[in-house]
Each structure stands twice: as structure tokens, then as C-alpha cells.
């Protein structure tokens, strides 16, 4: 009886270990990849499809990330704007005749959630992402898609989902689907280091 019991235990253990070994690449590995990147720069093109407008709004500019929590989005056209996130502090500066506003990220979940989706990915900060969203990962290291679904009902009123695609530790696109039907696509072209 004893030998047979041993076989059973070994067989069960093997059955438990085998699937884990097959899933060598996952959220943890994706996050670890991003964590290794301490700073990055990119150009972006953003297209916003708004229900109230008959044509999409297109804007271009640059993105700069510095670990662990600094993100700067500088829009160059059509209207200059600098959006800087440093920790919990967000500053929007639209130049002399625009809005200049500084507020806490956490105080404005409608903006905060969106910012945290990109910054959380860049930082490889899974808890930050999971604070607002449930994570879904498809694909492999060479080409992956992360789907973020808001957890908070209030946030669901604003954003229905965010889809981020990329390869290894770089983001290629961020597509935000708003609950009202509006949609924004951010195409990111990473600068060579």
C-alpha cells in the first residue's frame, strides 16, 4: 500500500507542476520586463473619435517616462499642452491662453484612471493597475494584448475598457473605449534609447 500511495502522490505533484511550467510567460513576466526599464521616450499620435464631432481629433507629441512614477505627455499639435504626472500630482499646462491646472491624481478618477493605465504598465506596477482594473492578458512576449476592465462602477460609467498592445517591454497602442461611445487611439513609437 505504501509504494502505491507514493506513486499517487508523485503523479499528483507532477500533474500540478506540468501546467505551471508551460505558462512560463505571463502577467508577472510582462511586469518584470517593464520594471527593468528605468526610463523611456517616445513619439505619439493620438486620434479621438468623439460622438459630438463629425471627424476625429488628431494630436501629436512626445511621451517621457522616468521610473518609478514620472510621466510627461507633451502635445505639440494642434494645440501645445504639457501634462506632467509626478507621483500623485498632475499638472496640465496649456500655455498662456489655456487651462493651467494642478490637481491630485486620486482626486480626479476620470483622468487618474486613464493615466494610471499607461503609467502602471510602464512601471510594471501590477498593484497600481489592479487598483482600478481587472487585467486580462493574451498573446506572447513578442506580441501581447492587455485588456483592462474598470472595477469601480463609477469608473465604468466613464470607461468601458482599455486595450494596450505591445511587444516585450514596449507599448505600441493604447485604445480607450469610453462608455458614451467615444474612443481614443494612442499610437506610441518608442525612440531608440
Amino acid at each position, binding site marked *: 500500500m505504501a509504494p502505491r500511495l507514493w506513486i499517487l502522490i508523485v503523479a499528483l505533484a507532477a500533474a500540478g507542476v506540468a501546467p505551471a511550467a508551460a505558462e512560463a510567460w505571463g502577467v508577472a513576466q510582462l511586469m518584470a520586463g517593464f520594471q527593468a526599464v528605468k526610463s523611456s521616450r517616445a513619439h505619439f499620435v493620438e486620434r*479621438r473619435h*468623439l*460622438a*459630438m*464631432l*463629425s*471627424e476625429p*481629433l488628431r*494630436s501629436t507629441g512626445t511621451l517621457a517616462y522616468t521610473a518609478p512614477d514620472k510621466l510627461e*505627455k507633451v*502635445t505639440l499639435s*494642434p*494645440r501645445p*499642452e504639457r*501634462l506632467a504626472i509626478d507621483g*500623485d500630482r498632475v499638472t*496640465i499646462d*496649456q500655455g498662456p491662453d*489655456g*487651462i493651467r*491646472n494642478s*490637481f*491630485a491624481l*486620486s*482626486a*480626479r*478618477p*476620470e*483622468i487618474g484612471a*486613464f493615466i494610471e493605465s499607461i503609467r502602471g504598465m510602464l512601471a510594471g506596477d501590477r498593484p497600481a493597475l489592479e487598483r482600478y482594473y481587472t487585467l486580462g492578458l493574451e498573446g506572447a512576449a513578442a506580441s501581447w494584448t492587455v485588456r483592462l476592465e474598470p472595477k469601480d462602477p463609477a469608473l465604468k460609467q*466613464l470607461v468601458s475598457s482599455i486595450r494596450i498592445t505591445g511587444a516585450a517591454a514596449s507599448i505600441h497602442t493604447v485604445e480607450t473605449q469610453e462608455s458614451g461611445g*467615444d474612443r481614443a487611439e494612442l499610437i506610441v513609437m518608442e525612440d531608440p534609447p
Partner: protein
Amino acid sequence: MRVTARDVRAIALWLGGVAVAIVVVGRTEFSTDMSAFLPRAPAQGQQILVDQLRNGVVSRLILVALEGAEPATLARLSKALAARLRAAPELAFVGNGEDAGLAADRDFLWRNRYLLSPAVDAAHFSVPELRRALERDLGLLGSSAAPLIKQGLPHDPTGEILVLIERLTGEAGPPTRDGVWLAPTPEADGSRALLVAQTRAAGFDLDGQALALAVIDQALASARPDVPGADAARLLTSGPGVFAVRARAAMKAEVSRLSMLATGLVAGLLLLAYRAPRLLPLAFLPVASGALAGVAAVGLGFGYVHGITLGFGVTLIGEAVDYAIYLFTQTAPGAATAATVPRIWPTLRLGVLTSICGFAAMLFSSFTGFAQLGLFTIAGLVVAAAVMRWILPVVVPRGVAVPPLGRLMPSWPALLGGAARLRVPLAAVALLALGVLAAQHGRLWQEELASLNPVPIAEQRLDQALRRASGAPDVRHLLMVDATDQETALTHTERLAARLAPLIADGTLAGFDAPARYLPSRATQRARQAALPEPAVLRADLDHALAGLPFRAAVFAPFLADVAAARLQALLGRDDLRDTGLGLRLDSLLFERPAPQGGGWVALMPLREVADPARLAQAVAAWREPDVSYLDLKHESDRLLALYRDEALWLALLGAGAIVVLLAVTLRSRRRVWAVVAPLVGAVLVTAALLSLGGRLSIFNLFGLLLVVAVGSNYCLFFERLERLERDDTASGRTVSAVVLANLCTVVGFGVLAVSSIPVLHGIGTTVAIGTFICLIFSASWTPSPGPRAAREG
């Protein structure tokens, strides 16, 4: 000694009086409104100050801070606490940085934006202006700020709500984290969650304020279990109501604690002196009767008795304990007390009369509290003296063996002889004191009303820190507008806003708040309504302005509908602001003056960051608007204190003058008046000089000096009598014992008050304890030892 019919009548009268007093006291209300110890203000600006202290929004503010835990924990605790407090009926408004606290305000602004926005005029909806607004909107939609404006845009393309919200939150609030106000603590690198609560109860309603504080405590206790890790968090509260409640509690606790201690010590002293426990309650009989009469008199005179009058007045008439001491110590063992009465009564009566002259000055004080104290002491002393004169001899027919204090000390004549040798040095000391006082001319008195503040310095600092951190109003500079009615007041402040604009531009001040921001005058509302275009015109102009822009057709239909509705909407009135934070703000800025103060309406415009008060005052004067006044509340309050101090000085001088006249009339001898007055003057000078060396003098010191005169005059009178009448050593020894014992009791009783942390108790306690002792020395030195003097004169 037989009990005569006259004694029976006296006892009956006394018992009847006690019964009546008990009935009156039973019907008297007791108040604890601390502002009774703030002056009834003579000038109008000062009345505003007192009103603000008593009832303004500022006085109804409770600043709450949570600290001592992780920032995230504090934030969650702040939310849990605020949610509970918002449900509490005792609090009208609770802000902690969450939107929830502002929802009603935002809703009011949103619904009425076309009547409230200062941008609305005829040109605002012209084609070029609409076009400019739409282009700006397009820019915002492409920017990161899009989520902030997108929802409202179809209703509000001209951005009125942005203007209104920015004006509302323009005054920088505290930093926010996790959706609530969270500021760093001044000391270490900790954090503090901040909340601002406004009580429904007025600032002077201390029971209401205490209840609100209790509600906050309870809410926190019930919120703690819901937030993990919140047990470590500490609650700090501050604000005028909080201070008043704490001051009242401290006052109550200290007055009862200290007066119990003083009573115990005095009782111990008397026990030691008399060695007769059964005399002890009798010694307190005049005081007790006097206190009862005092409360009844104040109740009848003022309609209510302040708690402090009660606690403090009893101490003030502690002088009456001396009466029994004079009687008992001056009666030889076994002798009839009634026989002593004629001997000491004239002196004692004069003593009581001089005390009354001193206290009568307080009757005319602008501080209701001090006026009450004046009446209390006068009634109390008269009754106490009467009880000593007519009741004690009946109750204690025969003198008991009272060992003269001399047993414990060198013989009295020797002591007095020694004191007499001090006369010249003491006179020199008095002159020196006069010099010290003269040298400090101009720096002698405390100049700030804050010096009377019963709040400990540490709490004042905390309050300042919380106030700065939470951006709560700390009103100091104000424009005050007087008007016959609300509408006139509002239109006037609207005109003043235009007048202030250039002063803001040149940096004299940073900005202002005005009631018309929350409730524009009806004229302005009508003008704004008239500036809104007719629906057909607006539709055509909007279409024109939209040409070539990518907005879809009919996106702005809600805008057209809202403007059309605003053209016809009923004008806003005060009721529309009910239950909003803005409504509370309006109530503090626009109110009807009570009829006794002349009626009419008052509008206040708090000014922010006045950099150059002198320039502002000049500019306001140049407007030549008689209904507008510029108030610097700090300046006003300090001026008020100076005014009041002058009043107190005059009253004190008047009281002193009355005492001299009284003595002159009664004693009929310049030499005898001098013998009484000179030591008093010397003692007052030396006491004032000593106190001034320890820091600037307060009004409480002044009242203390008045008491020194009232109490010390008795010593002088007794010593003066001693000089004339007492010829044998035993009798004079008894007189000296009586005076020394009386002084010991006073020094102990008031010395105990001197340890109090409350300025009013500390100030009077120190002054009286030091002053009466010095007065004893002065009056003794002015009295040559009776033996030689008697021999010389005899």
C-alpha cells in the same frame, strides 16, 4: 446674654431673606456664554466684531484633523468620518475635499449659471464670441482636460460653469490625496487628514457646540472599526466653538477645584487659629449668606447669572470671611460677642463701604461679566456685614478661647515697632515703584485683545496651522456696507467690486469675497436675463458660429434649451441656497442687523491678502461712500481693548476717588485719611510695579488692584483705629491677629487662583495675593507700635 425681641426680628428677617433668595436663585438662569467677558461694544465696527465672534460663520467652524497613521488609512478614515458627519443634523456642512461635500453647491451653480456668471452680457452670445468659445472647446476636447468638460459641453459651450467653479475654488485649498484633503504635519514627515465642519448651533451656544463636538467623537468611534489600522489615528479639533467649550470646561473645573482648595486651606487656617471646630461653619455664615444674596441680586438685575460670576464672586466676597475673624478674634474668651460689635462695627462698616466704592466701579464696566461681578460683590458684602453685625452675636453669644496668633510669633508691639522702622524704606520703595511704572510708560499695558484669550498658546498655534492648511477663512480685513434692505446691500457690493478691481490690479489686495457672488442683486439677475438672446436669434447665431467646425449638428440643442429656460426662470432668492455650503457663506456675509442695534442690513466683503492696509484705507476714504467702512478686525479689536482699558482705568480712579471722599466725610481728619490712604497708594504702586516687571499688565491685573484697594482698606482702617484707640497690649494684639489672619486667608485664597492657567483667574489671583500682603506691610508700617505712641499722646 438674653435673646431680645430685636434679635428675634433680625433672625426672622435673615431667615426670610434666605428663603426669598433661594426662590429667586431657583428661578434664575445660569449662562456660560464666554462672550459675557467680552465687552458690549460701543462702536459699530466693533459690534460687527463681537457679532462675528459670537455668531459669524467663522465662529461656527470646527477644524478637524486626523493624524498618526498611514496617509492611505487617514484618507479612508476621513471619508468614513465625513460620511457619518454629513448625516448628523448638528452639522450644517462638512468638507473634507471629497466632491460629496460640494455636490449641492455645484448643482446650484450649474442650474443657475446664466444668472450667476459675471461673464454674461449682451456681447457674450454674439457670433464672434460664440465662435471664440467653440474654438476653445475644440482645443479642450483634444487635450487631457477633455474628461473634465466633455459631459457638460453640449449644455455649456460658453464655459460659464468653469468660471463659477474656478471662482469658488480659486482660493487655494489644501492638497488632496485619495480624494480628500491631506496635508503634511508641521513637525515630522507625517500626514494630517483635514476636515472642516460647520455647526448649526451658533458660536455662542456652547451647549450646541459641545454637542457637535460629541457628535464628531462618536462618529469617529463608529468609523474606526470600518477602517483597518485606524486605531492609531488621533483626532485634533480646533475652532472658536471648540475653544469656548474647552475654556468653559477648564473654567468650571479650575474654578471649582481651586475654590475648593482655597476654601479648604482657609478653613484649615481658621481651625488652626481658633482651635474651635464649631466656630468654623459660623465663620463661613456671613460669606454663605452673602453669596446667596449676590446670586439673587444678579439674577434680579440681569435676568441671568454667568457661571463665572458665581464661581468667581464667591472668591471676591471671601473678604467677608474676615468679618467673622474680626469678631471672633477680638472677643475675649467668655466675653459677650455682642459687646465686641460696637467696638469693631464702625471700622468694619467703613471697610465695607470702601469696598463697595471699589466694586461699584465694576458695575459700570462694558463687560457684562464684570458688571455682574460688581453687583454680586456689593450685594454679597452688604449682606455678609449685616449677618456679622446682627446674626453672629445672637448665634455665638459668648466669645470662645481664641488663642491670639501672637502665641506663635514675637509679641505684636515689637513686631509693629519693627514695621514702623520700615516706614522710610517702604516709602522709598513706593517711590522707586512709581519710577519703574513711569519708565514703562507706553509699554505698561497689553495691547492685544488676544491677551485676554482664554485659549492656551499651544491650542492657538494648532488652530493657526489647521486654518492655514485647510484654507478656512481667517477674516481680518473687511469692507462693511450698511443698507436699508437686502437688495440695496447687494447692489452696493456689486458696485464696490468694480471699485476694488484697480486695487487688485496694483497689488494692494489679492481679492475679495462678496455676497453677490452667491446671490446677485435682482437688478443684476434681471440684466443678465435680458442679455440672454431670444431662442431663434441664439440658434441662428450659433449656426453661424459653428460654420466650418467639426461639431455635429444639434450637439448644442441642450445649450439652446438651457438658455431659453434661463430667460424665463424665476429670479434667485435666499431660499434657493438653503442647505448648501454657499448658503452658509451667504448668511455670514449678508444679514439683518437686530433692531436694538439700529436695524437695517449689513453686507460684508472679506478681503484677501491685504498687502497695504494704509493704502486701502485711503482709497476707501476717497470713494466718499458714507455707507461703506473698511475694518481691520485685528486693529478694531486692539482698539477695543485700549478703549476698554481706559474705561477700566477711569472707573478705578473714580472708585478710588469715591473711597477718599468717603473716608474724608467719615473720618473728618486729614491726618486720619492720610493714614489710611497713604499705605494703600504705596501698596498699589509697589504691586503694579512688581507685576509690570513680570510682563505687561492686563485688564485683569487692573481689576485685581481694585480688589487690593477694597480689601486692603480694611487693614488700614483697623490699624488706624488701633493707633487711636487700643491701649492695652492684649486688645491690640487681638486686632493685629485679626488683621494678620484675615490677610493670610486672602493670600491663601487668591494665591491658589494664581496657579490657574486661565488668564482672568491667574491675573486677579496673582495681583490680590501679592497686593494684599504688601498692603498689610504698608499699613502696619504706617502704624507706630501703640504702646509708645499711646504713652506719648496720653
